[in-house]
């Protein structure tokens, strides 16, 4: 397919790997923030070719993984209410709460539909006028504009039984929270591709300036990733910290202004709880009071329960880059993709699922 195949060109991989090796002139630690990057790096076998001295750690960029246990419990108990129909992206279906998952609730009779797009959830509302459809907003900047557009479409079409439970999150605040931790010594960030398409590469400039971090935005194909790693190694080797963008075909400096306007019309910043990271000020998006008719939390009077995370599960530490999955006593013993205990094992983008699937020791 155009714009994919050329960035997978086999003949380029070897020379780029050689260039990467040549670019690492001092040890460096880089965090790849985005869960789709985590998976792409594993899938392309890039972990096994990393030159000595190049440490790559996974960050908090898997939306299902960072969804708090309290939110999971709220989702599940809401799904069990009569006349509520919950619409989700498939990744969320098997994430355990403190008493089973949405999959378990569904087998007990709760109405849970897996959708591809928030617009599909709106059509579900049209087809099921007796139910209140709740789309569970679990995602980052890439997903938010589509949800905002769907709420606006519901308003324009006067559809009154469609709502969203927003746990939408924004990226820079958790990174700032992580960078404040003296234990996490990182030299650079491999910045997400599609989140950056919305917020723009310029969003990382404060991180480069304040924390002296090398920041490189990259795409998801083999050559995109290698190029990103090369630029990070070069910056660190030269002792510079700037924002570079290797994904110009999809990302520009200022971001997607049409999407930003749409998001700002519907959502406002709020404090948000993250698994492993706690509550981070301004890291989430709530539906503005003007659109309260489409806000499931307002319509259903939802109070978040105080749930503690599963005992022994180290998802929280893994999301902060402080542990790797194989250091968790549950990994590949009690916790597997078939019987997951923590969300990092459930999501197709979770770090534990990646380690399990690709057999990294």
């Amino acid at each position, binding site marked *: *397919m*155009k714009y994919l195949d050329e960035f997978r060109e086999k003949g380029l991989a070897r020379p780029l790997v050689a260039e990467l090796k040549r670019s690492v002139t001092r040890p460096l630690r880089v965090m790849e923030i985005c869960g789709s990057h985590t998976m792409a790096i594993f899938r392309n076998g890039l972990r096994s070719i990393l030159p000595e001295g190049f440490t790559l750690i996974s960050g908090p960029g898997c939306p299902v993984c960072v969804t708090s246990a309290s939110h999971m419990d709220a989702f599940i108990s809401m799904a069990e209410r009569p006349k509520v129909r919950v619409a989700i*992206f498939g990744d969320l279906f098997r994430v355990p709460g403190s008493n089973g998952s949405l999959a378990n609730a569904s087998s007990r009779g709760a109405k849970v539909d897996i959708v591809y*797009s928030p617009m599909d959830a709106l059509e579900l509302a049209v087809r099921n006028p007796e139910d209140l459809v709740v789309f569970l907003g679990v995602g980052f900047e890439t*997903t938010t504009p*589509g949800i905002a*557009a769907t709420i*606006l479409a519901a308003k324009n079409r006067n559809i009154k039984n469609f709502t969203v439970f927003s746990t939408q999150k924004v990226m820079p605040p958790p990174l700032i929270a992580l960078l404040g931790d003296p234990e996490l010594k990182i030299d650079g960030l491999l910045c997400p591709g599609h989140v950056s398409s919305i917020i723009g590469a310029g969003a990382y400039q404060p991180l480069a300036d304040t924390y002296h971090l090398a920041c490189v935005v990259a795409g998801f194909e083999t050559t995109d990733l290698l190029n990103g790693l090369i630029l990070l190694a070069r910056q660190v080797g030269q002792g510079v910290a700037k924002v570079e963008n290797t994904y110009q*075909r*999809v990302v520009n400096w200022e971001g997607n202004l049409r999407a930003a306007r749409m998001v700002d019309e519907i959502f406002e910043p709020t404090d948000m709880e993250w698994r492993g990271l706690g509550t981070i000020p301004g890291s989430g998006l709530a539906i503005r009071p003007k659109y309260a008719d489409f806000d499931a939390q307002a319509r259903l009077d939802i109070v978040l329960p105080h749930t503690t995370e599963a005992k022994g599960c180290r998802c929280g530490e893994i999301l902060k880059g402080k542990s790797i999955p194989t250091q968790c006593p549950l990994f590949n013993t009690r916790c597997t993709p078939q019987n997951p205990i923590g969300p990092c094992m459930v999501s197709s983008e979770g770090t534990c699922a990646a380690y399990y699937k690709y057999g990294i020791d």
Partner: protein
Amino acid sequence: MCLAIPMRVTKIEGNPDDFSSSQIATVDADGIGREIRLDVVDRWPELGDYVIVHAGFAIHTLEAVEAEANIRLLRELAAGMPEELL
């Protein structure tokens, strides 16, 4: 979750400035026609453009010039790599 893939636009409906109009494109995804939304795309596409699609919404119209410049640079870098380092 933030996966998004490029698809070629074959049909466009709606008005870019009127959000109450149905802003829809048909895209070709591996030979299969599919409808996607254009409500939040950064630049209104033209027929034949590629858009990056996430969860049923185009979020970006691909910049062909940038893609070509990017791949050209990578090829130059690869071509200039001394044989003994490979």
